[in-house]
């Protein structure tokens, strides 16, 4: 049994900027036991709905439970894969089309663990975290509630 990792807040307000992603990568240059980084970035897509084009997603969450589930997913991934470190961020509030709403960043000594862990983490997040998305469509304050498939 590996030790439990420090709790980190995952939910952040608004989109995740490309600069934040770049800075996160740069912070790992001093960690020389790492040989592989794997990243997943979720971007808001301009889906065509019958009501119009999606212009953004307004995210909300049952925040204390969401943070707890993110923590459990993090611990499960550390147990399952041989990872050096992991960073998770998910947006709350409005994220316009083309912007980033999910950032999963996993590092390991060798590539396989990092690549497989990212896939596992993203699947778990989509399935288990109580985050809700209101897809804004068209121009007249219309919306539809998103549902992960």
């Amino acid at each position, binding site marked *: 049994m590996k030790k439990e990792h420090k709790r980190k807040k995952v939910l952040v307000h608004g989109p995740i900027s490309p600069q934040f992603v770049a800075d996160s990568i740069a912070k790992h240059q001093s960690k020389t036991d790492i040989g592989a980084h794997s990243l997943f970035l979720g971007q808001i897509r301009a889906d065509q709905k019958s009501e119009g084009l999606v212009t953004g997603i307004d995210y909300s969450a049952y925040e204390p439970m969401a943070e707890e589930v993110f923590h459990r997913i993090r611990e499960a991934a550390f147990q399952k894969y041989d990872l050096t470190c992991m960073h998770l961020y998910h947006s709350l509030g409005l994220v316009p089309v083309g912007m980033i709403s999910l950032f999963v960043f996993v590092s390991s000594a060798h590539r396989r663990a990092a690549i497989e862990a990212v896939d596992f983490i993203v699947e778990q*997040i989509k399935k288990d975290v*109580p*985050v*809700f998305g209101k897809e804004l469509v068209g121009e007249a304050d219309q919306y539809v*509630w998103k549902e*992960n498939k």
Partner: protein
Amino acid sequence: MQIQILYFGLLADRIGLSSETMDLTRSLNVSEFRQILLNKYPFLGGEKFKIAINQQLAAEEMDIPLQAEIACLPPFAGG
């Protein structure tokens, strides 16, 4: 006994509330609570939602404890 009910996403939107308290005259399990909610808000009949008790997803047969925080959770959309 009194329970605190939280609504999220589509459910908060349809009901027009993000939370309310409910006085219960007897203890209930999740399935009975769900039926009370559907009687109060019949327009939720076609909606799928999960119920969490004190931040844990609860099975339908689970009893609701005293002073519980009940959250009604529509389909998840993270990512």
